[in-house]
């Protein structure tokens, strides 16, 4: 059974006719051939598939493509290219915020969104006082990034990369 859906990916309108079962992740990877978004677990347990939809990071594996009519999707490819990297991508390279690279696009998308979330005042589990605006601390970054597993264990470097990007924008 198929259904039509149109959404914008990295600023480009895409019209697809898809098996209704197609996840947003598989629509990106298999139909649009945007393979930067990774499939690590396909069950919302790793974060490798993180993309930014309408300004919010989500697990693209746990949502159907057909549910995103009219949405604006930003994937890792939409943030930057090897020749013109997004500041977060450049910071990951500089701080060696990866090893195998497979979780990296999800980490980068999440990292970009996390700094926006903090700026927007969204609290986290470790925000000391719910009445205060959250700050860019290592503890906040670690908690907020915990939905992105890196089995290579680049966490410490990822926090360094994010801290640099957050600092340069402050």
């Amino acid at each position, binding site marked *: 059974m198929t259904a039509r859906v149109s959404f914008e990916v990295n600023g480009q309108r895409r019209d697809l006719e898809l098996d209704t079962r197609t996840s947003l992740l598989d629509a990106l*990877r298999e139909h649009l051939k945007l393979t930067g978004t990774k499939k690590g677990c396909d*069950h919302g347990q790793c974060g490798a598939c993180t993309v930014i939809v309408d300004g919010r990071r989500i697990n693209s594996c746990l949502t159907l493509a057909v549910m995103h009519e009219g949405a604006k999707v930003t994937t890792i490819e939409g943030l930057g290219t090897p020749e013109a990297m997004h500041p977060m991508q450049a910071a990951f390279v*500089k701080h060696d915020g990866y090893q195998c*690279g497979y979780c*990296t696009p999800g980490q980068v998308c999440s990292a970009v969104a996390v700094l926006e979330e903090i700026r927007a005042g969204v609290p986290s589990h470790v925000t000391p006082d719910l009445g205060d605006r959250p700050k860019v601390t290592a503890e906040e970054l670690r908690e907020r990034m*915990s939905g992105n597993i*890196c089995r290579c*264990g680049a966490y410490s470097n990822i926090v360094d990369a994010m801290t640099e990007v957050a600092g340069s924008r402050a």
Partner: protein
Amino acid sequence: MKFDTPAATNPIDQLKVVGQPADRIEGPLKATGTAPYAYERHDAAPNAAYGYVVVSTIARGRIRSLDASRARRAPGVLAVITAETAGPLDKGQYNTVRLLGGPEIQHYHQALGVVVAETWEQARAAAALVQVQYQEAPGRYDLAKLKNAAAVAPPGFGGPPDTARGDFDGAFASAPVKLDATYSTPGHAHAMMEPHATVAAWNGDQLTVWTSNQMIDWSRGDLAKTLKIPKEKVRLVSPFIGGGFGGKLWVRAEAVLAALGAKAVNRPVKVALTRPVMFNNTTHRPATIQRVRIGATPDGKITAIGHESWQADQEGGSSDPHVNQTRLLYAGANRMTRTRLAKGDLPEANAMRAPGEASGMMALEIAMDEMAEKLGLDPVDFRIRNDTQVDPEKPHRPFSQRQFVQCLRQGADHFGWSARNPRPGQTRDGRWLVGLGVAAAFRGAPVQTSAARVRLEAGGLLVVETDMTDIGTGSYTIIAQTAAETMGVPLHHVRVRLGDSDFPVSAGSGGQWGAASSTSGVYAACMKLREQVAGKFGFDPGQTAFQDGQVRSGGKAFPLAQAAGLVAEDAIEFGKLGEQQELSTFGAHFVEAAVDPYTAEIRVRRMLSVCAAGRILNPKSARSQVIGAMVMGVGAALMEDLVVDKRRGFFVNHDLAGYEVPVHADIPHQEVIFLDEVDPAASPLKAKGVGELGICGAAAAVANAVYNATGVRVRDYPVTLDKLLAGMPQVA
């Protein structure tokens, strides 16, 4: 190039490029999502059909009937392949268990076939329509029960199963201070982020697989052997690997099934294992039971040290050498080790990052902590007192380099170890109980033959080709650094092509041998190229300098680019230096842990690792290897546990929600210090590996810190809060 005498001064010693903390040369590809992983080869194998693996839902027995007729009729289905229809298959040399099960079932989630369809969604749905009836058979799943029936392990990569020197029993019995403790470690999953994945395509009788594999040549051979075709007919391509940790040393089911599927439907087929089947379908680090006995004099000299290990594996499996480090790490005239292997029916056990030492150090280094406490000695001091500069089993064999004591001393100093209260459970920071822990890090420095090809292209571009893999280890970058240094060109003039069986056979990535071996192979090829270049310009190779893109000799100079078109290929072959001397890597882990006195939740607050591992080829990527291994050590210490259903014979927590690995919030800022070291006996680059050193001992350091914080000694990993609760302070 033979390497059978210690390295003298050579072009690498310039250290203009090697030894520098260069950013990874493939980093921008990874950070932008443009590095192509196995399942993503729309470019190389367009129009691939999708395979979905059907797996066994019993652990042991036989298939009584397998009915794929509904699956075959399902929408979009192109083929269903099972053992019955696959044709004759062999088993890979490196596989213990057959990759395609049936009619006999050897373990839970053993692959029984593949459904190939036009789309992934169709293949997945159709796979659920395959009806299998089983005749279940009883199996052996409980290591504690199998232990007594365990046999002497067959000799494997880790040395003899039994070793002895002196009179262990007598010395232990008469030792004034002794420890006799038993530890257990559970099974661990590699849980690399990229699932096992392969795209297969046939061109006539020629098979190409784009896959995710650490060992190109092994797996090319094993895929050919499994399919009963000549090795030359297989090309295996694996330029980017989303993590391996030993789990991708071998051909796995998805590669075989993709090849069979592609043959059946006469077009490319891609197959990935789904996460929930990976844990039982593939290999894992085996669970262990380990007994450690240490006897010492009152002043802390070890007089007797014994380490015994029990594990289980499928028929034909091999054992991890959990006792290896105990043969080499500490002095003591009377010593013994034993490795025992029982037959069991859980999925195949096999190598995972530092097989042997990773688990062995989890036990030994708690034992050392316990023994230090019995002796009333500081655990750093106790280890230093028992340092040895020779192989304790063969005292005529020195260590080529051994800065273990320096690692401990420098680490203790840097970490503020002197502030540690030796009495456990006494230190508070606000609500939290706080403790410090230390453990040794130790891992061998194995090497393997490794070849490479280097080619000078127009414009002075230097292209390196080798079937070496980069599983996140930094191979691309250290190989480029090696080539740039040897040929005297800037890093950005080097292109590195890896992971293709069309390239010269390398050491591959495993056993911490990759960095030292593969860069040596590249060095050998570059040295051959230098000879050719010198010859082309009429220079004496021994009197020719390669610097700044220029080739100079006797007052003359040519741009290296003028030699474009030259190609050289060579391999490094290691001689017996590693037999005459013990080549090892050393380190010391320091951990500060905090424990909530109410809930016994554990938080690692600080981690430091001091490593002495030969020349560090790239301090940035080497540091990442060590911190990553420390993270895996935290996982092993605090949460990782393949939980066995002992009735039904499978790992119950078979997904990434159930099998917990550390997340960002578990990991503090980590520090790594590399001691200055060059090891001329190790390789022409005087380098050794660090990728596995960092995990060895890391878990024990965490466990020892938790003990220091709480006074509760946990000997059965993981150290989870339920094991601490009974010993926690009274709360109102």
